[in-house]
């Protein structure tokens, strides 16, 4: 690989993935609210309309159900649609085309027609936006057979996973968090894929494994730095994909460290953390020195008032506290 690399913001890494895949493959198109606006979906759609025109960069009325269904249908008919929802909350209108149709289509038609669609939902939390404008709903989709779900945390992965999602022959949910859009990281100029279903060790450690998703990976790394100063060596795993799940990476790590703290920005009950916890207890129970701990949102809708938001959202300190508890149990 002759890879020239430079710093790029997360949102621009996604933008580059779209530019390059749309250039390379004329069956790729983007549809969703705000794709013609310079501010609606961050910078992710920058320059696409100018380059590819309104037949492949389609801003839409407020019609999530039909627009998502149309993306699914176009993909059944040979295109590779990317349908974007500027907030994942709005995507709930599209449960039917995503779950009943896209997820099941290949199976219930005996493999006769696949659905290479990307359904892209942006999480946009905080700012006193309250319950309908802050939700992290990715695990609901990860529950459904037939759907893949990716949750990139870095600009490198945002680009590589967007490319992989577009090229995948199945419906993939690409779920990113708006708070990541400004972070910068190394991104190769060339077109590359990050494999769906593969996690990555972001930091090696020996006492405890912290597995995190999306923005919490950064919080986990900060926590691990602090813990190091107190003599606790934490390994940090970035899951990158919720489904398929990189079971081997996680289980091998926990087999080595014997302890697990799971940090996920969804709700606690029946969530990502619950699934990962069940997994390690099934697979590597004998090497565990303590029960796995979950750092998640409480089972409460997102409050408006910033006074409550402070208590609601989780970060570095919650992870650190949880690690210490696990270390001393």
């Amino acid at each position, binding site marked *: 690989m002759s890879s020239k690399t430079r710093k790029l913001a997360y949102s621009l890494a996604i933008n580059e993935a779209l530019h390059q895949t749309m250039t390379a493959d004329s069956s790729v198109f983007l549809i969703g*609210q*705000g794709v*013609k*606006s*310079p*501010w*609606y979906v961050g910078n992710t759609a920058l320059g696409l309309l100018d380059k590819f025109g309104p037949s492949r960069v389609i*801003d*839409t*009325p*407020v*019609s*999530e*159900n*039909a627009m998502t269904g149309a993306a699914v249908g176009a993909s059944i008919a040979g295109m590779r649609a990317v349908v974007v929802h500027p907030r994942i*909350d*709005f995507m*709930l*209108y599209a449960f039917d085309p995503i779950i009943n149709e896209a997820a099941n289509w290949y199976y219930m038609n005996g493999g006769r027609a696949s659905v290479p669609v990307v359904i892209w939902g942006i999480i946009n939390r905080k*700012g*006193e*936006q*309250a*319950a*309908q*404008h802050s939700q992290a709903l990715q695990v609901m989709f990860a529950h459904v057979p037939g759907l893949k779900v990716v949750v990139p945390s870095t600009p490198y992965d945002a680009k590589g996973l967007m490319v992989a999602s577009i090229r995948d022959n199945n419906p993939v949910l690409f779920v990113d968090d708006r708070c990541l859009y400004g972070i910068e990281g190394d991104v190769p100029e060339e077109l590359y894929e990050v494999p769906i279903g593969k996690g990555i060790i972001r930091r090696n450690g020996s006492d405890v494994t912290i597995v995190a998703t999306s923005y919490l990976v950064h919080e986990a790394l900060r926590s691990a730095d602090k813990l190091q100063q107190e003599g606790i060596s934490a390994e940090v795993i970035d899951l990158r994909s919720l489904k398929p799940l990189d079971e081997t990476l996680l289980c091998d790590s926990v087999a080595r460290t014997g302890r697990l703290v799971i940090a996920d920005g969804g709700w606690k009950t029946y969530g990502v953390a619950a699934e990962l916890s069940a997994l390690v207890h099934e697979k590597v129970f004998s090497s565990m020195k303590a029960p796995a701990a979950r750092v998640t949102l*409480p*089972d*409460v*809708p997102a*409050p*408006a*008032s*910033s*006074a*409550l938001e*402070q*208590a*609601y959202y989780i970060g570095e300190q919650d992870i650190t506290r949880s690690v210490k508890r696990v270390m001393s149990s």
Partner: protein
Amino acid sequence: MAVNNAKLRELYHSMLRIRCCEESFIEPILSKEVRCPVHLCTGQEAVAAGICGALEKKDYIFGNHRSHGHYLAKGGGMKEMVAEVYGKETGCSRGRGGSMHLIDPQVGMLGSAPIVGGTISLALGAAMASSIRKDKRVTVSFFGDGATGEGVLCESLNFAALKNLPIIFACENNFYSTHLPISEIRVSNRIFEIGKPFGEQSFRVDGNDVLQVFDRAKKAVDLCRRGKGPVFLEFVTYRMHGHVGPDDNIQGCHTDIRPKKEIERWRKKDPIVKLERLLLRKKAMSRDALAEIRSMVEQEVREAHEFARTSPFPKKEDLHRYVFKD
């Protein structure tokens, strides 16, 4: 329809309360004392005031993301609304909802929510409740031109007509849906026509003329009360500010959406100025009387902010409250 002077004053008062309250948020938004997203309805006051002026207290309304006006016109407390926008425990939703979740069940304001089209079917359900109970209530569903893109509107229009439900579908057509002008989301901007094929009585009304709004709303309410609903009303109007906050979305600025000339054209059609002229012409109110109402309203707005500022924030220990009712 003849509207007596007392009603004219009431409509004027109602609109002015909305206007002054809306404009009072600009400063605290800019200073970040108000942090939640606020969708101002300046310019659209006549729709809320005219419709709610035709309703009784027992009637129901549901709103959307831009519902300060709906809430106030229906009789919701200004103090509680302002405190909600500040995220305070004394707010109408106890600081859990913010500007986009206003509610006051005691005066028939059953809630507002920003999912576009999300409350239309809820309003349908409230009308259904009334028809089951035969309690002669009327429900109004407020939504914007943007909501005409959602399938749930068509589903609700059909069912309401099929069952003659006592509901008024009130579409505020301000010609914009976030960043898109109406020409980019619909072939026709004659929104009222979408009600017709479903069997709705459908009308287009000048939403900047509170008397026309009131008149048409009154007729619609009467029909619904007599079991002859539903009615679909389109109100042609304009929001003087941009989609969210005090940014006016003028072409050339960061958000770059609306032609300056267009905004100026609509400024001349200000619904409050229009009513003031009429009141003076008809000698329904003197200049002094108008000024008196204004200073009363300004006082109320000042007190509401004072109340909000001095109110406590919700307590962290109460984070888990209100998830379930016991």
